[in-house]
């Protein structure tokens, strides 16, 4: 059992709020990712959970036990939180062998020698390092050091595992491999995980739920598909994957859907978007793969760029004053200059504000 709760957790450095009023409950065995651009406060939040940073406000509670409280009444030191942590720089101790690195938490806990040896060996097997126990870190590759760090964080079966951008120093192929491995380990050990990353792909693959952070606050929490399909605002939409934003006016409603006339296009070509209209002026957010070629589609455009991606094609299509990206399978072969008609399968509406018009339009 390990349920981790953050209640209104904040951290201020002088007058600057690094983290502001973060409330989040991580269920037992759940994998939650803090996702956001650099400087959004995600690492600070994680380090408050670990006990390296004292929160300015709020409480951190594990299974009903208060770990940190802002009034200073409680600040359990990191060594008494029973957590495991993987650091971005791995932080594998260079003066100890692989075995000693991994065995360290058990030795500190005062376990008998034979048990230390057995459990360390078992954990090394778990991360496929059984042959390297006697090596020193400088003899290992980056990926192997990463596994040592992971084994060390797991060896004493922590209640909560914290991972701070653990894959960002690995190359692309290794990163993908480790992703699945971390996922597999988490499911097998049924461990509660808080994961920090700025890589939305990583977050999507790994997480049960993702908390998107901007400017020290959580702007949306939800399952990956939830966040991808129903982003709370244009920022979340553009941070998770690619999004096309099209400005327009709501010209009518019918049966729980809104008709939107896109700027610069005739009213006859209006889009029907399911859901209530949030305002008269709106931004229509459409994912590249939610656009399809359809001879009966309402949007008339012209292909201006074609990019071959191997497993598919990426088109840039001009529709009146708008430019959209269209993700197509390998079978849709269009030429540059070709006229196409497009239909919208899924879309989300946002009220258009100054902020959204300036930041949300750069879909290309």
């Amino acid at each position, binding site marked *: 059992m390990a349920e981790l709760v953050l209640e209104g957790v904040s951290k201020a450095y002088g007058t600057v709020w690094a983290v502001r009023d973060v409330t989040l409950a991580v269920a037992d065995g759940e994998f939650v990712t803090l996702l956001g651009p650099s400087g959004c406060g995600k690492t600070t939040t994680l380090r408050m959970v670990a006990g*390296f940073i004292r929160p300015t406000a709020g409480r951190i509670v594990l299974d009903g036990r208060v770990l940190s409280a802002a009034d200073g009444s409680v600040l359990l030191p990191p060594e008494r939180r029973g957590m495991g942590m993987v650091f971005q720089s791995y932080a*594998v101790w*260079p003066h100890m062998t692989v075995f000693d690195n991994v065995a*360290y938490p058990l030795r*500190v806990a005062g376990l008998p020698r034979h048990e230390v040896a057995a459990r360390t060996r078992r954990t090394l097997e778990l991360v496929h390092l059984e042959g390297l126990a006697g090596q020193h870190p400088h003899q290992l590759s980056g990926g192997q050091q990463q596994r040592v760090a992971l084994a060390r*964080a797991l060896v004493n079966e922590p209640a909560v595992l914290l991972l701070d951008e653990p894959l960002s120093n690995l190359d692309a192929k290794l990163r993908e491999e480790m992703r699945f491995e971390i996922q597999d380990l988490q499911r097998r050990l049924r461990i509660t995980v808080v994961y920090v990353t700025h890589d939305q792909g990583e977050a999507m693959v790994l997480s049960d739920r993702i908390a998107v952070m901007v400017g020290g606050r959580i702007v949306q929490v939800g399952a990956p598909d939830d966040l991808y399909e129903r982003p709370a605002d244009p920022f979340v939409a553009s941070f998770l994957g690619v999004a096309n934003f099209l400005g327009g006016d709501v010209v009518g409603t019918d049966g729980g859907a809104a008709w939107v006339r896109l700027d610069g296009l005739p009213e006859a070509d209006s889009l029907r978007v399911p859901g209530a209209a949030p305002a008269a002026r709106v931004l229509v957010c459409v994912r590249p793969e939610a656009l399809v070629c359809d001879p009966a589609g309402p949007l008339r455009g012209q292909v201006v760029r074609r990019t071959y991606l191997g497993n598919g094609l990426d088109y840039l299509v001009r529709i009146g004053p708008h430019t959209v990206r269209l993700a197509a399978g390998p079978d849709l072969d269009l030429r540059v200059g070709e006229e196409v008609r497009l239909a919208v399968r899924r879309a989300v509406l946002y009220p258009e504000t100054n902020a959204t018009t300036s930041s949300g339009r750069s879909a290309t």
Partner: protein
Amino acid sequence: MREAALPAARARSPRLAGGVLVAAGVVLVAALALLVVYPSVMLVVGSLVADGRLTLAHYWRTFQDRAAVATLGNSLVVSTAATVLGTALGTVLAWLVTRTDLPGRRHWDTLLLLPYMIPPFIGAIAWVYLLGPAGYLNQLWMALTGSPDPLVVIYGPSGIVFALTLYGYPIVYATMRGVLQQMNPALEEAARIAGATPARLLRDVTVPLMLPGVLAGALLLFMSSLANFGIPAVIGFPARYFVLPTRIYRTILNFDLPNNLQIAAALSMWLVAIGVVLLFLQRRVLRSSRFVVVTGQATAPSRVELGRWATPIAAALGAFVAIGAALPVGAMLLTAATRAYGLPPVLENLTLQHFETVAVGIPKVPRAVANSLALASGAATIIVVLALGIAYLIARLRVRGAHLLDVLVTIPYAVPGTVVALAMILAWIRPVLGVHLYNTIWIILLAYVARFLIFGVRTLMAGLSQVHDSLEEAARISGASGARAFREITLPIIRPSIAAGWFLVFVPAVTELTLSILLFSVGNETLGVVIYGLHEEGKFALAAAGAFLVTTMLVGIHLVARAVSLRELVT
């Protein structure tokens, strides 16, 4: 043909036009031959030749000389003691400043490096004013307790160890501060999260990771203590306590002793041998790659909370800074401002007379100031030019054999200054190819350049290594010639390193004593020689006035250097 020529051209990767390169290389090699190789050879030859024949007689003689062997023992004892104390002190202080929540850390950092600004022999002179038989602290003690005997008299081995520690610990402090700042804090946090208490973390992770740095710093401190001349001269001579550098000095000046220079050369070879062994050890320590600390993204290190210990520790540091810097400087000022040394410091005994006498009353003083400023700025300028060439050859062009240059540059600094001075004497005591350098100011300049060259080379190599090859290559591909790319791209980028290298040479050179005291002649005195001379003659008040003025000047230079380097970084 073209295909065949390509790989060779790549391997060499020439960046400067060939002719210029060759000419520059020849000049550098000639300079190093003159500065290092020739004097070194003359030193070795000197130790091995008697009456025109090869012989081990000088060595034999030094081995049989009980006093000389005892001196070797003194050197080792005093240096070891100072190294142990200074290393402990420097390491603890560096840890306090970098890894704890000690209040006012940044100010402590500046204050703790203050003793380094005071030249050791001046520091030693100041401590004579405090703990000499009639020193202020002893006077105070006798007045307070009514005791007829002074509390402690600084003369002798304990005093030497005390002064060596006090003026040497900044070497370890600076090394350890760098090590601790570069150590990835996540290494320590990983131990905390693994369940280690702060004390356990210190034992299992921090201390083992610091160890190579501590060893490297300790070796540097040992070598510098072993080589120090000023402190054992000021504090050792009155107690007739000798260490190797002071014994060599006495031997060189002992004109009644036949073959005195050759015997001194044989004694010097002992110091050289110790130096070689230590350098070898140092390389071994630094090369043990097991201790490579993987640094990650710079996160602020977590600091140990001192809690209720913060105030007592800050108070102890304050007392320490007072002992290292404030007390000696105060003693200099007081001695200089008192009519005669030993008089109680009451108002009617105060005078500015000594400052006036030092400034205008003794003609050799202003002359020495001019000499020292000219020598120091001349040496700094020559060194920066030579170092730029050497660093470029080693770090940039990676010319085969260039590392030999690095070794040559290291020798005159790894070897004690007294030995460098003796090598220069042996090299130039007779005119070479009609050139007279002995008893001129030029031999001092030559010695300074040889001795301090390493500061310039190291600084510029560090600077150059931060300029990636591709920056110059981008200029080349844009159409600039090799020389132009160097002038317009590399040179402006490394300008702060050039300024830093210049100051790193200028500051120790302007108060240099060890080389000058053996190489000066009438008319060519340096500041260090004059102040030391006044002290030796017992003119304490005048020496104090000079020492105080020099210390003030050094602080001023440091402030200027800091301002300049800051501005260099901004532009």
